[in-house]
C-alpha cells in the first residue's frame, strides 16, 4: 500500500511531475517579467536627455568575458545533475560549487562594470538609460544571486545525504532555473550590449 500510495501521487497525466511542470509554468511567467523589463529598456533606447550614452561606456570585451563565464556555468550545472543521477555525490557537490563560483565571478565582473559606469556619471537617477539599464540588469543579478543560494542549499543537502539520485529532480529543477537565468542574459547581452 505504501508503495501504491507513493505511485498514486507521482503518477500524473503528462508523466511530468507537478514540481517540474509548475516550475516551467513559473518560468513562463518570468518570461513576461523580463520581457517587460527588456521592452522598457528598448523603448527608452536613445531617449536619455543627458549622457553618458551606451556607446560611450559599454566595454563589450569585458561583458563578453562575464557572459562567457555565466554561459559555461550552465555546463557545470548539467554535470552536477549528471553526477548526482549517477550517485557520484562528491562530484555533484564539486560541480555545484563550480556553478556558484562562476555565478560569483559573473557578479563580481558585473559590479566592476557598475562601478565604472557610475564613475562615468551613469546612475540610477541620471537618465532614462540609467534607470532602465540598472533596474533590468539589477533584477537579473538578483536572480543570479538567488540561484547561487539555491545551489548552495542543494550542495549542503547532498552532502548531508538528504538528496541522492532518487531526488535528483530537485537539482534538475534548480538547473532549469539556472539555465533560464542564463538564457535571459543572452537576450540582454544581445539587445543591450551588442546592438548599437
Amino acid at each position, binding site marked *: 500500500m505504501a508503495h501504491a500510495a507513493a505511485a498514486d501521487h507521482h503518477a500524473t*497525466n503528462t508523466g511530468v511531475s507537478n514540481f517540474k511542470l*509548475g516550475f516551467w509554468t513559473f518560468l513562463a511567467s518570468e518570461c513576461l517579467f523580463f520581457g517587460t523589463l527588456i521592452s*522598457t529598456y528598448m523603448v527608452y533606447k536613445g531617449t536619455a536627455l543627458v549622457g553618458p550614452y551606451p556607446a560611450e561606456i559599454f566595454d563589450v570585451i569585458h561583458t563578453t568575458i562575464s557572459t562567457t563565464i555565466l554561459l559555461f556555468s550552465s555546463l557545470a550545472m548539467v554535470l552536477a545533475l549528471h553526477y548526482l543521477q549517477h550517485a557520484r555525490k562528491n562530484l555533484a557537490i564539486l560541480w555545484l560549487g563550480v556553478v556558484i563560483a562562476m555565478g560569483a565571478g559573473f557578479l563580481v565582473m558585473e559590479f566592476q562594470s557598475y562601478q565604472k559606469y557610475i564613475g562615468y556619471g551613469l546612475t540610477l537617477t541620471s537618465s532614462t538609460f540609467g*534607470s532602465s539599464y540598472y*533596474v533590468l540588469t539589477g533584477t537579473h543579478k538578483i536572480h543570479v544571486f538567488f540561484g547561487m543560494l539555491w545551489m548552495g542549499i542543494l550542495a549542503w543537502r547532498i552532502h548531508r545525504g538528504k538528496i541522492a539520485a532518487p531526488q535528483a529532480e530537485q537539482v534538475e529543477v534548480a538547473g532549469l532555473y539556472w539555465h533560464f537565468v542564463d538564457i535571459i542574459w543572452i537576450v540582454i547581452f544581445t539587445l543591450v550590449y551588442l546592438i548599437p
Partner: protein
Amino acid sequence: MSSVATEQSPVHGTSHGEETGLWSWITTVDHKRIAIMYFATATIFFFVGGIEAMIIRLQLMNPEQNLISPEFYNQLFTMHGTTMIFLVAMPMAVAFFNYVVPLQIGARDVAFPRLNALSYWIFLFGGIYLNASWFVGAAPHASWVGYATLTSSQFSPGLNTDFWFISLSILGIASIAGGVNFITTIVNMRAPGMKMMRMPLFTWMTFVTSFLLITAIPVIAVALIFLGFDRLFGTVFFNPTMGGDPVLWQHLFWIFGHPEVYILILPAFGVISDVIPTFSKKPLFGYPIVVYAGILIGFIGWGVWSHHMFTVGLGPIADSFFVAATMIIAIPTGVKIFNWLATMWGGSIRFTTAMLFSVGLVAVFTVGGLSGIMHASAPVNLQQHDSYFVVAHFHYVIVGGAMMGLWAGLYYWFPKVSGRFLSEKLGQWHFWTTMVGFNLTFFPMHFSGLFGMPRRIYTYSADLNVAIYNQLATVGALIFAVSAVIMVVNIVKSWRSGEKAGANPWDAPHLEWSIPSPPHHYNFPELPNVQSREPLWNAGEREQILAVTMGEAKEEPHMPNPSYWPILLAASITLAWALVMTGVWWIIALGIIPVFFCTLMWGLEPAFPEGH
C-alpha cells in the same frame, strides 16, 4: 433520476482524520477550507468596497454637494475600484477555483497545497495592508489605474500611493502562485478518463484564466517596480522632465489591465456554462465551440489594451488596429451568448436562484457588451472617454457579468460545500433586489455620461442637468446594498439551518456531484473513471462512478501535511514589502531575511507524511 444519490448521501462533513479548531484552519492546506476562507474574506471586502461606493453615491446624489472633501472623494473611488477588483472579484473567483476544480477533475487536492495556502494568506495580508492606509489617513488617491504622473512623488507626496503600489505588488504574488498552481493541477491531476475535452467548462475557464494570470500579472509587477523606484529612489521612468514617458505607464498598465478584464469575466462564464445546462437538463450546446471561444478570448484579450488609450493620440494606424481587435473580440463573446441561449432552447428549465443569476448575467452582460462595442470605435470613444458612460459600461460587465456569475456559483455549489441548500426564498429576494438595484444604479449613468458628466470628479454642476440620473443611481445603490445584506443573511441562516441537500441535489452532470455533501477531506475515496462529458447523466457510467465515490476510503488516503509555513511566509513577504515604504535600502535588505528563512524552512519541510 438523482434520488438514488440523494438518499445515500451521508451528511457528516467531518469524517475521520479531519481536525477542527482555529489552529487547523491556520495551518490548513485543504483546498476546500482555503476556498471557504477566500470566499468569506472576499465577502468582507465586498462590504468594505460597497460602503465606499455608498458614500460616493450619497455625495453625488445632488449637484454641488459638499458632504465630503474632494481629497476624501479621490480616496474613496480609488479604494473602491482597487478593492472591488483585487480584493473581491478576483479572490471570489479564486474561491470557486479552489473548491470546485479539484472536485470537477477528480483530484484529491491541488498540485501545490501549501502554495495554495500561501496565496490565500498573501491575499489576506495584502488586503489588510491596503486598507490599513485608511487608519493612517493616507488611503491611495490616484485611482485604480494609478496614471503617471499623478502617482509621482511630486504630485502624490504622502504615503497614499506607496500603500497602493506596495499592496498591489503583494497581491500579485498570490495571483501568480495561484495561476501556476491551477495550470499544474488541471494539466496533471485529472482522474482517469478525464480528458481535456471532457472537462466541465468551469475548469476550462479556470485554466484559461490561470494562463492570463501568470502572463498579465508580471507586466504590472514590473510597472509597479518602476513606480516604486521612481518614488523611492528617484529613477526617471515616468518623469517627463528627464525624458521618461508617462504613456509607458499606461501601456504597461493596460497590457495587464485588459487581460485582467478577462481574468474577471471568464470564471463567471465558466460558472454559468455549468449552471445553465444543469437547470435546462441539456448538455451544453456546442461544447467545443464554448471552449475554443474562451481560449480565443484569452488570446485576443492580449491585443486590445490600447482601446483604453484612444485619447492619448497614438496615431491612426495604432488606433485602427486596436479598434479592429476590440471589435473582433466581441465575436467569441457573442458566440458564447448564443451557445447559452441554444442550451436553454427546448430544455426543461428550472428557475432556481442559480439559474436566475445565470440568465441575468446573459441579459445584463450583453448590455455591457453592446456599450463596449460602441466605445470600441475610436471616434465614439473620444466622446465617451472618462465619462459616466464608461462607468456604466464596466459596471455592467464586471458586476452584471463577473459578480452575477459568481453569485450563480454561490447558489449552485453551496449545497456541496455545506450539505445544505441556500434558502430559495431569500435567494429570489437576493436576485430581484440585485437586478432592480443594479440596473437602477448603472443604467442612468449611460445618460449622465453622454450628457457630459465626467468620472472621478467629486461633484457636478446643476447646469449639466444630470441630477435626476444621479438621484436614480443613488436610490438604486441603496437597493443594491439591501441585496448584499440579504445574501449574507441567507448564507448565515442556511449554513446553520438550511434544508439538507444530498450528494447531487440539482441532478447535475459533473464529478463534484458524485461525492457526499460536504465532501470528505480527501474528496474521493477512490478515483473515478470518467468516460464522457456528463458522467452522471449516463446511467451506466453513473452507477459505476457512484460505486467508488460514495463510500468511505478503506485506508486513509495519502493527504498533504498541514503547515504553518504558508502563513509565516505570507506574513514575512508582507512585512518585507511594507518595509520598502521606508525607502532605506538596508532596512529593505533586512526585511528579505525572514522571507529567505521561511522559504528555506518551507523547502525543508516534507509536504506529505513520511514513512513510505
